[in-house]
């Protein structure tokens, strides 16, 4: 497998603010690589440096094994970008927009026409070809934005928070599309602050905070790095104070809460936590209803490493 992107000790300052602090990243061919971090952690800055849209203070960036510079047009031809904000011409139709951006890469008229049609098919905007962007709903607009970035069939596709403010159905549609692009051979870099998205599609993930990459790996690897284990949730109509106290003393119990007749117990890593809890209920003759068990989330990973929540910053 070939390295597609390699970022080495990248430092980027905005005045006094260090936006990227000796940031490292290596992305291999065929990956869907997720860059997960809260707002302001430096994801967009990373992407902008990677694309030579920003000058940086230190470090080096290689794409397809070559140094990336503002005039590396032979590298740029194989890159497609989709940014957080929709970047289209309001006064061009869906088809004309895709044609314009595709034409910045593809000179041959016939080939361009084919590629534009393929892109339209891909994002399923055939019925909206002649529409102006203002007439499209949020989800369709995002799909147009994506089509503009991928029409020229890039080998590396970079998406910077492409699903912000998108309804769940469109979001799923977009995520499935990204998976398909990856199947067709493109390497994907996907930045987001939604952990569910990276869990759903990414083959490897880097977690970012304050301009640093704090953990890299598959989601399983990341989850096994931390001490947090599963969280068990049980509907219990009635629990006494002393019973709660005893439950908290069971092995591996990390945190528990009892609210609205629902008991949440979070465990550190360890086996047989659920059996032990249910045994206790039986012993004490406690009636209980639905039981669910969740593995740790990337939020738990983030929380454990940084001491703060990934979301709601």
């Amino acid at each position, binding site marked *: 497998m070939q390295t597609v992107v390699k970022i080495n000790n990248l430092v980027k300052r905005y005045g006094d603010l260090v936006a990227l602090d000796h940031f490292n990243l290596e992305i291999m061919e065929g990956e869907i690589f997720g860059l997960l971090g809260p707002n302001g952690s430096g994801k967009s800055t990373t992407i*902008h440096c990677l*694309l030579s*849209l*920003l*000058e940086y203070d230190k470090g080096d960036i290689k794409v397809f094994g070559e140094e990336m510079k*503002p*005039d590396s*047009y*032979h590298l*740029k*031809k194989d*890159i497609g*970008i989709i*940014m957080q*904000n*929709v*970047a*289209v*011409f*309001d*006064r*061009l139709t869906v088809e*004309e927009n895709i044609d*314009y*951006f595709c*034409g*910045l*890469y593809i000179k041959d008229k016939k080939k361009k026409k084919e590629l534009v049609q393929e892109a339209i098919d891909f994002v399923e905007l055939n019925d909206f070809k002649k529409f102006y962007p203002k007439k499209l709903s949020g989800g369709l607009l995002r799909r147009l934005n994506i089509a*503009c*970035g991928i029409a020229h069939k890039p080998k590396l596709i970079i998406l910077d928070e492409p699903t912000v403010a998108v309804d769940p159905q469109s979001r799923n549609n977009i995520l499935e599309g990204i998976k398909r692009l990856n199947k067709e051979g493109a390497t994907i870099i996907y930045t987001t602050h939604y952990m569910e998205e990276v869990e759903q599609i990414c083959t490897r993930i880097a977690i970012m905070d304050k301009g640093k990459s704090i953990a890299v790996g598959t989601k399983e690897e990341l989850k096994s790095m931390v001490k947090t284990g599963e969280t068990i949730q049980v509907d219990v109509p009635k629990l006494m104070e002393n019973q709660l106290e005893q439950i908290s003393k069971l092995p591996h119990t990390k945190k528990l809460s009892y609210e609205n007749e629902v008991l949440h117990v979070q465990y550190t890593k360890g086996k047989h936590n659920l059996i032990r809890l249910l045994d206790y209920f039986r012993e004490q003759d406690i009636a209980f209803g639905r039981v669910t068990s969740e593995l740790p989330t990337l939020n738990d990973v983030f929380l454990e490493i940084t001491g703060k929540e990934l979301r709601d910053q």
Partner: protein
Amino acid sequence: MQVFNTYFRLVQRKKRLILMYIIIFTAIAVVMMKVSTQDENLEKYTRRSVKISVIDRDKSSLSKSLKAYLTDQNEMVSIPDKEKRIKDELYWRNVEYVLIIPENFQQLLEEGQKVDVISKKIDDAVNAVYVDEEIKLFMSLFSLYQSADYSVEDAIGHVEKDVAHEVLVNTVTKEDGESAFKVANEGQYYFQYVPYVLVSVCILAISCILAMFYQEDVRKRCICSSMKLKDQNQQLVLASLLFSFGVTILFIIIGIVVTKGELLGQINLLFYSINALAFMFVSIALAFMLANLFHSETALNGCSNVFSLGFCFLGGIFVPLWVMPDSVVTFAHFVPTYWYVQANDAVSYMTRVTSPFLKEFFLNVGVQMCFAVALLSIGLVVSKKRRVFS
């Protein structure tokens, strides 16, 4: 030529608005042209002589010669050299124009110093411009001969011959072709309004379209593409130039049509056109600067009104500057339309291409080009600043 083609596709999307402006403009220009030339028609052909009084404090051969020349052209009234009397006579319209030639006028000129005659005129002196022009002509010829190292007496002699010839030319055109004079003035009125529509159309089209390409997010995408940024920018420049050139040529053609083709045979048309092209560059540069400063179409539409109307009022297009207070006239020098109108007026008075005319004309054209360069530079500085993304 992807960028170039898309530029014109976007022009097409704006064609209704542009067409509307062109039609409205043509209507206004034609109406103004007709109105303005009508009530002055008679005066223009047999230009009514102006009641003028020359107060000669110098009594040199130069001042006497100038006085004699003006006497030839106008009705001479003599009034005493007293401030109060001069005011009264002007107020009662006993005299329309008072020219004061200061003491040592000739001597100072001989020493190479700059001295000006003093002109006082009544407020609505329509014909006063002819006297102004006559004085201007006389003095510019004199300084021309003087700079060619003629003695004062020789210079005066030559000037007298030249101005006599000039009068001859005027009378000839008046007699054998009254229309020549009239058409030149129709042309003047028509071309006077061209900056209004050029500024409007350039901002509405060029600024709005460039602003679309300059939107931060679209621009990022374009920069990341494999087409060289330089190529993209060149195509934008080329398209803008071609568009505004087309519009300018269109207005020149409309000008020829509305003056019923009579401008065609005249050398004046060439100079009117050069002037319009010079102003075209000012308009493009302005449009470029504004596209870099404002990104919303609403803001740019506002700019289009502010600049087209502002330029036209301050530059003396809608209202002649001599009715404006002095402070406005001074300020008008900082407005490119002022120089356009100066050049346009010079062309309309021109009956023969003389070197003083060329000098005056190209000075005014040159100043317009300086404005264009200045506006362009501001635009470039702003666009450099914008290259860093947030």
